[in-house]
């Protein structure tokens, strides 16, 4: 059974930031929802409330960067680039301010529907020059995200998981690397964020079906080591499949597509994710099933790629975690 870690960000951020005078904790009226309420209460001097006014917050953070601070901004991911995109561009990304953008509730990890779901943030960030993009897929990555982000000489976009988070890995994020989770030679599966757990759920069933999967987990999406990816692609026979908590245009799937096309790789790619669609509100597990982001969707994609049918059903996949909607580790409401 997978270990579940409660509110890893809360602890990790406090451990990393408390007492470092150059780090400021910025918040936009979602302090407990981003698990920094404890930090606010215990380190009020390093905490800055900027209210529900994200545009000002971003340019303000740029000004703080100019004054030598390294602001960690906390809000839901969606409110950190849609409302204040212009400010993110001009005040943070262009001048390479050391602002750490901690975006909570990536993709469909929120029941809040289209206004709360950051489904195209990676596409947006990938096309922003100077941006670094990190995404957490487990508790260990959440625990190491602050240090990883703060090691970057420039702005960093982070997709952060909150609440009860599974521990899948035992080593921290090493920026610029990728995790090789299995080393098969039939098919390359590339996942990031919460989709990695899904791919792991499918692992044993696929193995039983006789398929040798090479599985990569990406925590660093930009900058990207395309040479390493190409080596992995070179090691598999059939092709590549990506699964991401994001639209299929512009995210990890496109990154892999670019890498393959640039190199003239003659293997097929299947890009799974939100298929050029918005999502609605609902539980994570429900939405992942509805929009084809889960283990079963991956299996179907692999069937498509190989042209085989494995007869794998939900029962064959490792038990999905069921989250208690009202568990106390979950922040209030959204």
């Amino acid at each position: 059974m997978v270990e579940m870690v409660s509110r890893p960000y809360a602890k990790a951020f406090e451990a990393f930031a408390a007492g470092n005078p150059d780090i400021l904790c910025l918040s936009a009226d979602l302090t407990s929802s981003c698990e920094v309420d404890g930090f606010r209460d215990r380190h009020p001097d390093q905490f800055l409330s900027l209210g529900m006014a994200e545009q000002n917050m971003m340019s303000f953070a740029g000004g703080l960067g100019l004054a030598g601070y390294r602001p960690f901004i906390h809000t839901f991911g969606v409110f950190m680039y849609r409302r204040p995109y212009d400010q993110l561009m001009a005040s943070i990304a262009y001048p390479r301010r050391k602002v750490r953008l901690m975006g909570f509730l990536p993709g469909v990890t929120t029941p809040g529907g289209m206004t709360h779901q950051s489904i195209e943030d990676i596409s947006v960030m990938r096309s922003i020059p100077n941006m670094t993009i990190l995404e957490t897929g487990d508790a260990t990555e959440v625990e190491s995200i602050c240090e990883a982000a703060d090691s970057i000489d420039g702005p960093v976009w982070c997709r952060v998981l909150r609440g009860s988070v599974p521990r899948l890995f035992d080593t921290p994020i090493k920026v610029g690397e990728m995790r090789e989770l299995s080393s098969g030679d039939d098919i390359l599966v590339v996942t990031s964020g919460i989709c990695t757990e899904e791919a792991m759920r499918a692992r044993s069933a696929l193995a039983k079906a006789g398929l040798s999967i090479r599985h990569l987990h990406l925590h660093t999406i930009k900058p990207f080591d395309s040479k390493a990816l190409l080596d992995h692609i070179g090691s598999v026979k059939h092709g590549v499949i990506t699964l991401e908590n994001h639209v299929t245009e512009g995210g990890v799937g496109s990154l892999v597509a670019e890498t393959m096309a640039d190199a003239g790789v003659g293997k097929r790619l299947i890009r799974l994710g939100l298929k050029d669609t918005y999502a609605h509100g609902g539980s994570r597990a429900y939405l992942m099933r509805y929009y084809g982001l889960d283990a079963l969707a991956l299996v179907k994609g692999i069937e498509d790629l190989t042209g085989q049918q494995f007869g794998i059903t939900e029962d064959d996949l490792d038990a999905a975690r069921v989250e208690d909607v009202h568990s106390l580790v979950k922040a209030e409401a959204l």
Partner: protein
Amino acid sequence: MRNERTTEEVALGIRRRVFEHSMRNNGGYLSQACSAGEQLAWLYNEELKLGAPTLPMIPKPFEGVPSPSNPDYHTGAGYNGPAAPEFDRLFIAPAHYALVAYATLIEVGRMAPEGLEMFNKDGSSVEMIGAEHSPGMEVHNGTLGIGLSTGAGLAYGRKRRNEPGRTWVFMSDGEVQEGQTWEAVQAAAFHGIDNLYAIMDVNDQQCDGAMSSVMEVGDIKTKFRNFGAACVEIDGHDVQAMRDAVAESHEGRPLIILARTNPFHTMPILEERFPRLHYVRFKSEDERARMNVSIAADLGVEPVDYSH
């Protein structure tokens, strides 16, 4: 469809439903029922001119997001009746007030009580953060501060078409922190959009607590007036004050009613949770039980049997 009951009775009914729902679900947007009960009751029970609902009393399940391949897509606006020229339109700008808005629809006979049971259930259209397809909603407003602009655009368009119906926006005070709200008022005043009406729940609260501790906004009324709107400030629990406020003359300007409210009005025990009222999730079974007994007594109902 109106005036079978007094607006005060409707407000009480809204609070009873939100209370019961929150008890059963171990949490909810309970404080918003305290603050906004009268406002939504007044709008639906008296003030809005709406036609009969055009959608089934029991909400249909979620039927897909808008896309070219979803031709039958429609919003939840049909619960407010048809979008005919003579009728009013309403946007719930802070979409997290949806629970209170759904309860209102039930109380005024526009949605069946079963609708509330579908709240935040997978596959239901009755979403926690009111979606376009949720009962009574016509647009997505979960990203706060955009509602008044949408209302201004619709009102302007309707004015051009000589439609007599008004466009109403229910707003929250948190929205005044967003710059867009000011752009909207400025534009509505500039273009003389006086068929635009807003009523704002000024409960002095936002997610992180009291607004003065999160980002002070000062005197909202004076601000709105300086940006060109007509603005009246009232006791948001006084229905007669609303009736008077809407009579304020505002030719060539939108009218904004600031309803100053108490975030634990009718449920004084909620004050224990001050200053974190935005979403009340009970911290313990004991708290849940105590609040159950206390609020039930306040609202004149039996405590909720939430054990099953």
